């Protein structure tokens, strides 16, 4: 698709960030990101990545838009109720930046299709609303050696971490067991905040700037406006990533620093 706006002018303000410049923008342009889940988190993640100018964005969600989504899922509009979320999101995202290649996928991620959906991506951003799908995505990301940005929300609270074993734990190290999915209360400002932080991690990784949330989980509580950080450790007995070598530095960026793709 040909962009209606000259390709670099629109990114002037972020290219002016110290250490970014045209090289960073080229890295973004050559990157591909999977956004798994197009709810509250996915709305913020996909919007930020499209505005930042990633080259290819694969967006995946099997659901259709429901009226109860509209308090937070700003990719979808009142007129989208009943439509596929992937299709509704594609329309909104394409209108924001015609220079980004957007690939909508209307599927529920499972062990049988995860390789097809997540394959070939530079990084995965997990915005799903259930642990069943999150565990599938986590396992595949570990086996494929693709980094994954985890985010989750409940109420006014949310969490973010960057996973890339063996440098970090995987989801199963942190939460080896999880309760079944259920409908949870969420304020749009909370999912928007956490989704924006997930997008920040993905962009930092792609561009190779900053310090990623590797081995750290950031917790934001909007009720108290407090951020806190937990130190995460790998589980050497983890059934998912336990066999991935300890101590190896698979990411090329060096200790704790974001890497290029």
């Amino acid at each position: 698709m040909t962009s209606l706006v000259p390709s670099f002018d629109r990114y002037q303000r972020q290219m002016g960030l110290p250490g970014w410049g045209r090289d960073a923008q080229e890295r973004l342009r050559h990157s591909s990101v999977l956004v798994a889940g197009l709810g509250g988190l996915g709305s913020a993640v996909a919007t930020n990545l499209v505005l930042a100018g990633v080259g290819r964005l694969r967006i995946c969600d099997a659901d259709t838009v429901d009226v109860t989504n509209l308090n937070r899922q700003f990719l979808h509009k009142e007129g989208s109720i009943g439509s596929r979320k992937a299709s509704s999101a594609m329309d909104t995202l394409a209108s924001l930046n015609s220079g980004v290649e957007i690939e909508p996928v209307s599927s529920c991620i499972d062990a049988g299709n995860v390789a097809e959906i997540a394959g070939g991506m530079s990084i995965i951003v997990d915005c799903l609303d259930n642990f069943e799908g999150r565990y599938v995505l986590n396992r595949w990301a570990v086996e494929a050696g693709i980094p994954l940005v985890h985010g989750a929300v409940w109420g006014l609270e949310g969490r973010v971490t960057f996973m890339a074993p063996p440098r970090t734990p995987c989801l199963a190290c942190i939460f080896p067991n999880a309760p079944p999915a259920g409908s949870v209360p969420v304020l749009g400002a909370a999912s928007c905040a956490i989704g924006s932080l997930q997008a920040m991690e993905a962009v930092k990784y792609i561009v190779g700037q900053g310090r990623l949330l590797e081995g750290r989980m950031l917790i934001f509580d909007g009720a108290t406006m407090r951020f806190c950080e937990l130190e995460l450790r790998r589980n050497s007995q983890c059934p998912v990533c336990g066999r991935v070598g300890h101590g190896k530095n698979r990411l090329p960026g060096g200790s704790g620093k974001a890497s290029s793709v």
Partner: protein
Amino acid sequence: MPKVIIPSPLREYVDERYEIQLEGKSLAETIEALISMYPDLRPALLDTLFLSIFINGKKIDVEKEGWDRVIMNEDDEVSLIIPIAGG
């Protein structure tokens, strides 16, 4: 006194309090004090299948270290972490 940070999904059991200061020389005493104040929390806190405990941001392996052998300091902050999956 040590402070326990209550995660959002458990606040309904503690009168919507965000954090609670408790007397307790050990982690066991601190958690017992919390349960005695809010008995409805008991199932969530004793379900170690889902619960992780961090003190000052570092994870405590309660099975290995033992609830009563983890000594609490005056300014310690206990985080109760349960899985959340909202997207």
